[in-house]
């Protein structure tokens, strides 16, 4: 009997030293993740997430409600100008930056001049620039130079760079990245949702992004804007809707794969699907052919046999809200965006030929890389391209809408207003970009809603820094807030916002 203890003791003794810790490394290897990866998988993620983020329920009913496309309402108190920190938007952008910067900080590091990495790095950088631009456009000064340096070089208290310095850096970077795009280099192929690795199109896209960077700062730094815009105008830009940077969407899939506006419909609250009065009125009063594909006639008007479109006011007081019967108002169209059976599925736009055309029209008005006479042509191309976009697919401009395409007899300011208004409609569903461009151009002019909120009844000009950032990076946050004319509030204006 004694014998049976020997093996037990022996096993124990052997096991407990060296031998048994031998499999520790294997045991402790994470079972569902890897330590390095094909950069394409990361690029795909960032391209898709960045695009889909701006068209879902929350940004639509906050930013989209501020610019009076969506009605917002009591459920989204920020739509009624009640200030709150925008943690979600802030964190989502830095998450995009974490992922996209891994490509340059780790995955393809060291391959900057190698054909196997050069162009891939440039494409990743271009995508990164567009994320940085949107982040600073929404908030103003943000941590930029001291962050996204890789996991070994993390600054846990990065300073907030001024928007002016960020823009200068982004313009330098876009030039560098464009120079690195090389058609013979390895590219991302199908992982690249925008262009499937087509470098010619990437060059046009990068240059269009440069145009946008330049135009955005035209009222803050005219000289740099003019230089940047003029340079961009001299190089190929997006030339037609076929050049649009888009992400495909899939209807019969999870809500993560559907168009963001369809996601808004499927996953969101029934009370947050209504359009704003100013937007619907604009479409109705100008006989806009997109109207039935953007808006839905109100339930009660249909019941009464007289289908009609009507939007709800924004930032309404409690007293007014009580008088609202939702069935009297229009939601977004259940034939198109709010329709799972709409076929083919609507691509999610990142940047369109129409965007570019409106910038070109504006540049032409200034004589930056084009003549003033060309402005109308560019503008018309922009409106036509906008009408032709899915799901509107309007190929010919109806006669009743033609006046909207004409610059005849207008002052320069009126022309800008017309560009701004058409841009506002074209950007429906891209709530970040629509809010950004509305602030920059100041058009269309919108009347704030009657509820005073925290802004004393003015439309917000920026969104508020994350409370988590304020808590964990307090000193730098305070410094940045102090630089804002009215502190970290909705009413402070970012550097380029001069209108």
């Amino acid at each position, binding site marked *: *009997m004694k014998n049976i*203890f020997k093996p*037990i003791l022996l096993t*124990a*003794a052997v*096991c*407990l030293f060296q031998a048994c*810790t031998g*499999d*520790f*490394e294997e*045991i*402790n*290897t*994470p*079972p*569902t*993740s*890897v330590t390095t*990866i094909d950069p394409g998988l990361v690029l*795909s*993620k960032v391209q*898709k997430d960045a695009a889909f983020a701006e068209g879902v329920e929350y940004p639509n009913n906050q930013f989209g409600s501020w610019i009076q496309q969506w009605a917002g309402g009591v*459920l989204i*108190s920020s739509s009624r100008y*009640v*200030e*709150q920190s925008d943690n979600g938007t*802030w964190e989502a952008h*830095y*998450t995009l*930056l974490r*992922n996209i910067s891994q490509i340059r900080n780790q995955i393809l590091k060291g391959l900057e001049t190698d054909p196997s990495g050069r162009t891939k790095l440039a494409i990743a950088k271009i995508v990164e620039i567009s994320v940085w631009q949107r982040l600073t456009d929404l908030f103003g000064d*943000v941590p930029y130079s001291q962050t996204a340096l890789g996991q070994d070089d*993390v600054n*846990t208290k990065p300073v907030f760079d001024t928007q002016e310095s960020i823009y200068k850096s982004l313009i330098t970077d876009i030039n560098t990245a464009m120079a690195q795009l090389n058609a013979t280099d390895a590219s991302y192929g199908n992982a690249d*949702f925008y262009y499937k690795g087509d470098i010619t199109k990437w060059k046009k896209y990068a240059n269009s992004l440069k145009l946008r960077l330049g135009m955005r700062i035209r009222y803050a730094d005219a000289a740099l804007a003019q230089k940047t815009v003029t340079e961009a105008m001299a190089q190929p830009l997006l030339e037609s809707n076929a050049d649009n940077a888009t992400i495909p969407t*899939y209807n*019969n899939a*999870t*809500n*993560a*794969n559907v168009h963001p506006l369809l996601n808004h419909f*499927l996953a969101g*609250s*029934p*009370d947050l699907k209504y359009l704003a009065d100013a937007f619907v009125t604009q479409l109705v009063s100008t006989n806009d052919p997109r109207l039935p594909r953007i808006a839905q006639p109100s*339930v009660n008007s249909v019941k009464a046999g007289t289908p009609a479109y009507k939007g709800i006011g924004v930032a309404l007081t409690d007293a007014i809200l*009580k*008088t609202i*019967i*939702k*069935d009297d108002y229009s939601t977004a169209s259940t034939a198109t965006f709010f329709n799972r059976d709409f076929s083919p599925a609507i691509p999610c736009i990142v940047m369109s030929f129409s965007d570019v055309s409106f910038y070109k029209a504006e540049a032409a008005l200034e004589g930056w890389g084009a003549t003033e006479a060309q402005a109308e042509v560019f503008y018309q191309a922009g409106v036509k391209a906008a009408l032709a976009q899915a799901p509107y697919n309007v190929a010919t401009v109806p006669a009743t809408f033609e006046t909207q395409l004409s610059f005849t007899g207008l002052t320069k300011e009126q022309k800008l207003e017309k560009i701004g208004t058409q841009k506002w409609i074209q950007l429906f569903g891209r709530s970040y970009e629509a809010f950004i461009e509305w602030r920059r151009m100041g058009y269309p002019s919108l009347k704030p809603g009657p509820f005073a909120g*925290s802004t004393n009844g003015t439309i917000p000009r920026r969104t508020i820094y*994350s409370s*988590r*950032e304020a*808590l*964990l*990076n307090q000193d730098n946050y305070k410094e940045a807030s102090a630089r804002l004319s009215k502190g970290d509030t909705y009413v402070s204006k970012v550097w380029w916002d001069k209108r």
Partner: protein
Amino acid sequence: MDSRGEALIGVSVLVKGTTRGTATDVEGKYEIAADDEKSTLVFSFVGYVRKEVIVGNQSEINITLLEDTQNLSEVVVTALGIKRDKRALGYSVQEIGGEAISTAKEPNLANSLAGKMAGVQVTRSANGAGGSSRVVIRGTNSLVGNSQPLYVIDGIPMDNSNPNAPGASGGIDYGDGISNINPEDVESMSVLKGPNAAALYGQRGSNGVILITTKSGKSRKGIGIKYGVDYSSGNALVLPDFQDEYGQGLDGVFTNFRGADGKIYTWAAAQAGNIQGMPKTSGGRDRFTRSSWGAKMEGQQYEDQWGNVLSFTPQPNTFQQFFKKETQLINNLSLEGGNDNINYRLSYGNTNIDGYTPGNTLKRNNVNLRTVAKLTSKMELDVKANYIGQKGENRPTVSDASDNPAYIFISQPRSIPMSILANSAWTADDLAKQLGYGTVPTLGMEKTYATNSSTANPYWTRDHTLNSDDRQRLLGMIRLSYQFNDWIRLTAKTGTDIYTDQRFRYREKGTYQSANRNGDISEQVTRVREDNSDVLLSLTPQLSKDISFALNLGANHQRFYSRTTGNTGSEFIVPGLYAINNTLTNSYVFGLTESSINSVYLSGQVGYKEFLFLDFSARNDWSSTLSPANNSFFYPAVSASFVISDALNIQSDVLSFLKLRGSVAQAGSSGSPYQLTGNYSLDQNAHGGVPLASFTSTIPDPNLKNELTTSIEVGVEARFFKNRAGLAFSYYHAATKNQILDVPLPPSSTFASRRINAGEIQNHGVELTLNGSPVKNASGFTWDATLNFSRNRNKVVSLAPGVDTYVLGTDRGVNVVAVPGKAFGTIIGNGFQWLRDENGNRLIDPTTGLPLKSNAKILYELGNALPNWIGGFNNSFRYKGITLSGLLDVSQGGKIYSQSMREELVYGTIKKTLPGRDGTYVAEGVVASKNVDGSYTGTGQANTKQVRAQDYWNVVAPDKDNVIPEEMLNDASYVMFRELTLNYSLPAKLISRTPFKAIRAGIYGRNLFYLQRKTEGFAPEASSFNVSNSSLGLESTALPLMRYFGVSLNVEL
């Protein structure tokens, strides 16, 4: 009789190995049925030396008990299952016996500890039958994890985790490990409080250890059969204090109007236009339509949101109409027997719970077989197999989630009849006459009272959704020991805790909350296995008459494995088929965790003349979760016990026993697996065939080290008046350093957190236990009382460099955090704050008459979630065969933030919102005057302006996201009459002619009533939605605590 020949009254007489017992009467006489000649009678009496007598052929046994001049010999189970005389221990161990556990049956064994032990805090989850419980001994030690003790059953650690526990926004509690154990199988529970007692359990002992010893068979003739049945029934003890005066609407009126022309108008338009017809309610989502700020319910006719014409009357009993009485039926049968060489015990327990939530059932079968055999004169084999099969159905969803019925009822308008909701699917007529639902509803879809993304119809949930779970568990142990000679023994032991947990859930097509209202399904299986193998060499040489010595050398190998696989699918294609292939989109569930720890340890004791004892132990762990450079760590412990009364021979009639003790110990912990490297992981869903990947949001640290808790403890134990009264006092101080923390980073760093060793948490406190027998009189009546008190002070000394706050839990309007310099569990409001003058009075706007609040949301401290002190007071009275005992459970101090109150105030459903609805509400505070710069100062003059209650509460809680958090804060103090049991054992005389050897019947009540409670509408000790740090200080539409009454019958053959 005693040594002077005087009769002793109330001496306990017990047939050894059974629960059959009696006590001597006034003449010192007794009568008891022994099994056979080999039976042993055990005579015991406080203050006297226990005596055992073999019955043999005697029919009358008269004995003399000697007064225990030495001390009371009290044997307790300590680390490694070693039984020790309590006097020799230099640290605190407290034990409760099986009877204290099994007389008033708690479905979760952990709950039986509530109020019974100093320093042990038990928090029930508010999650219905079979839910988890949180036990914290001597305060929270760790920022991450749950700070719960390790459960060791017959020497084998048990996995107490609860995979996929619920969170702040829903989930289902499928029960923790300890809830699987059958209380009837438990012989005793020994609580090792903190590292000083538990150092030998290594890293998992740093939060203390609860040692559970299960029953084993005894040598006897024939088979001993015991049968017990226990039935209890429970109902809600605490419910929200609903108002039943005002119904759905706003401003004291209805929101809408159905004109005689068939058109729907707003109330205002109908009034202005003098429209004929009747009032109508709307199903809109916001508080303007769905709250109970409407008209007085006076039976007036109205049309509801679905077009039903009803009379507007109060619907007071929403909870009572929907929920049911909870019943619990437990049957236990055990067989035991044995001889000199082998004994066995086989038990079967069956638990059947019909839950409070309709459709919720829990069935559990426990089979336990324990056999101890002497294979040779030197070798002993101990084998145990414990099988647990548990099936749950329709466990309730908890916390802030739509399909938690309690969540619906707290906000549902007080005028909606339950009979209307009971028809839970949309009809064509509903669709035609509805108001407020827009284009959403379709025929046959779930009908909710509002178009809310977070309201469900509880009747739909009951009838059209299903969840079930099936846990099959085996706790097994084999121990072989060999006694080489009278001082060397070798024990080898291996044990396993292995279980599969299968969970299935579906929600039919039409369920409002499911993806695109097309239903969903999920099925997953978790397979967990924890193996522990030990060898232990025990040496107990006789050195000299005065010096005793013992040494244990041991080694342990532990391996943990958990693998979860499953599928989730959404959007059913064909109705009525609940299979994953019938879904439009589906995705996988996968998780794998593996870890291993190897250890060597030694422990020893040196005793001098039975009054001075020194214990020491040391352990080294090798953990797989750390890198090779850091995976080996060592921690020692030493303790001493000095029995002053013996050493100095200072016993008197007053002081019977006095002991001083002290100890110092360390315990380490190596954290979870997979913390060392940064990684890319793939998204669940590819996008049109293109896979998506992202980089970890946590910056890993390849050089992580173990956490280390250092603890000191000193104590006094004394007994007085010939051992009639006892006192035990402990002071302890524990500091946990180098915690493995995910330190939060600002989002702009692009990372969410950095994993490092940082931080220090200190706990120090006192524990006091007093016990005694105040009455023990000639008639055989005894009164025993135990009072325990403990007070723990927690301090977060530091977090990581540069980190000021560590968020433990967060919910709407509130964060619960750890902040350096303060106690763990600081509650921070995240909302608006009242403006106050320098005296703390609220400032009232002179024009509106309403209190002023901050312009935007801010963070401000509200209080702390931890109690000041906890205690228990247990009394038991015995008279002949009758035992009556009662337990008071006390907790004082601490705060709870109530999400339910927030809902109730927003929607005006509780009595608190009644005063001043007619416009006579006067907000407390001082009138403010506005300064030029827009700020306010107080005038010192009390506000007298009258406002509508609705307007006042609209400032407090205009909607869910914008509240004054301090208004939702509740004092968690309570005094609860936790348990009352009355048991009667039939006298042996009466049953001597029956086949029964013993019959005991009892009645009991549990959670009887509060002597003190300060929370509004919920039970303070049963409000959390899970058992981890993340629900500390948060209540979120808790299911009510149940008050149970039960009866039990136990017979022995």
